């Protein structure tokens, strides 16, 4: 989360982590060979792996989609959002309620996308006008007010006992186990969302988001209304959050007010930055971090969860301030420079000259060497 003063959220962060794709995929041959190869591997994987590996991969898929949504509004558009978990929770509730009321599953999925998107749109319409501070505070309010509200609307949400919905048994004829079927559902839906989003951020909208993130005043001087694109980014993020809520129900099949607790929103932000902000592959790595780390610390020592997770987080950021997605780039630099023997892993982010002044307006050019 950039410091709430708008200036820092629009500090022209020149960290290379915000480059949309790591160099590996830019090679022409990778662009052709890569995707089909991945699809084949993902198609075979669920059949090969054990049940708990399938569950883990499915949960990684759920939270990778949630982190992707957060990236759209935060990584790519530079707005501070600490409420993404609210949209996941909302999506999960819509799914659970829909399934329990026996609605058609396709209708349930459509509603799980629409309702969070509409809520996100309404919130953004009001908040985007007020700049970084307001968006940050409103998004903090969503999960914090959402939990007691979920308890109060108990006839929809099952109150504090929550709702469970088992609706993803493997179809009879397929000969698949439930966990394999669930993993396929997550991979298909998640894959589509990732594909659409990567097209979005690479296209016209992506460039507009980047400019709004870079410098809102420059954006408006170029005829790009920061307000319109912030609302769009927030709505898309809410929609993706809803989809991740649907996938959450596919995998966990139970939801309660705890699902959307504020602590998880902070963990999603951590996952986004650790994976690599503003990057598609970073979102996947972020989802993996969110899911694998608690299992890892449980394996090491269940009574030291917080200590191990804190230490691990700081260690990763110390070595890779740009997030896990910058690992290949950092290794490359180290490989190339090691013959010269002086390979210091300077942080890849080129520092902007100020740490973000407190002014509400964007950072003035005059403070940098060049002249406006």
């Amino acid at each position, binding site marked *: 989360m950039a410091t709430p003063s708008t200036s820092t959220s629009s500090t022209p962060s020149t960290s290379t982590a915000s480059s949309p794709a790591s160099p590996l995929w830019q090679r022409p041959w990778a662009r052709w060979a890569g995707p089909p190869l991945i699809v084949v591997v993902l198609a075979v994987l669920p059949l090969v792996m054990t049940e708990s590996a399938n569950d883990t991969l499915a949960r990684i898929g759920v939270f990778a989609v949630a982190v992707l949504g957060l990236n759209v509004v935060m990584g790519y558009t530079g707005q501070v959002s600490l409420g993404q978990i609210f949209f996941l929770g909302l999506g999960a509730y819509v799914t659970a309620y829909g399934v329990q009321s026996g609605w058609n599953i396709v209708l349930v999925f459509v509603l799980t996308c629409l309702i969070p998107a509409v809520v996100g749109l309404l919130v953004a319409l009001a908040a985007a006008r007020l700049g970084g501070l307001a968006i940050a505070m409103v998004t903090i309010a969503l999960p914090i007010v959402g939990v007691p509200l979920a308890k109060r609307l108990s006839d929809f949400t099952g109150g504090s006992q929550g709702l469970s919905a088992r609706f993803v048994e493997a179809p009879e004829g397929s000969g698949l186990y439930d966990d394999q079927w669930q993993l396929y559902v997550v991979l298909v839906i998640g894959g589509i969302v990732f594909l659409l989003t990567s097209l979005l951020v690479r296209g016209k909208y992506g460039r507009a988001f980047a400019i709004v993130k870079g410098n809102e005043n420059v954006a408006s001087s170029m005829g790009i209304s920061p307000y319109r694109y912030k609302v769009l980014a927030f709505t898309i993020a809410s929609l993706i959050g809803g989809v991740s809520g649907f996938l959450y129900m596919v995998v966990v099949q139970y939801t309660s007010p705890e699902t959307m607790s504020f602590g998880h929103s902070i963990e999603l932000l951590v996952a986004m930055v650790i994976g690599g902000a503003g990057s598609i592959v970073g979102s996947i790595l972020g989802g993996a971090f969110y899911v694998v780390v608690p299992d890892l610390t449980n394996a090491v020592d269940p009574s030291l969860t917080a200590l191990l997770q804190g230490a691990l987080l700081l260690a990763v950021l110390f070595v890779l301030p740009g997030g896990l997605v910058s690992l290949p780039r950092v290794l490359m630099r180290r490989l190339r420079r090691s013959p010269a023997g002086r390979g210091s892993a300077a942080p890849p982010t080129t520092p902007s000259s100020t740490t973000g*002044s*407190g*002014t509400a*307006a964007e950072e*003035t050019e*005059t*403070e*940098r*060497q*060049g*002249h406006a």
Partner: protein
Amino acid sequence: MGKFIQLVVDGLSTGSVYAALGIAHVPEGRGTLGDLTVRENLRVGAYLRKDAKGVDRDIDYCLDLFPNLQDRIKSNASALSGGEQQMLAVARAIMSKPRLLLLDEASLGLAPSTAKNVYDAIRRLRTESGISMIVVEQNANLAFTLVDSATVLEVGRNVLTGTSAELKGMDEIRRAYLGG
């Protein structure tokens, strides 16, 4: 001048070297502290000085030197115009009572009349305080109104050196700028 030249200064961060040795630097980007008021910017300039009365006296001197700053003393530095910010940058630099003042493109981005006011004030400063100055300036004519001697650099090479009187009218200067 001798003392500075003998000292080995490379490798140290510019900030600590300049201030400690009594060198004041007016950076090209002016380094204005936007959030602070004009008075606070001046006080930051005098951070290393211990004589409180002397500092107050110098603030009044600066306001006299740059009258435009007088009525903006309370407002945030970020609200000042380009010219006013340049004046503030110079004022802040001399607040540390330097022995050597480095002026880096003081007229850049200013309207000609404002640039002239800034240089007039600096000339008055030179005569009254006797601070030695090194001025980097593209606007040759403006520079010659201030400096005693000058060196013309072309693509980094020292093309010409002499007193400002000698160099003033020479077409050499024009050729160096206009090329060909």
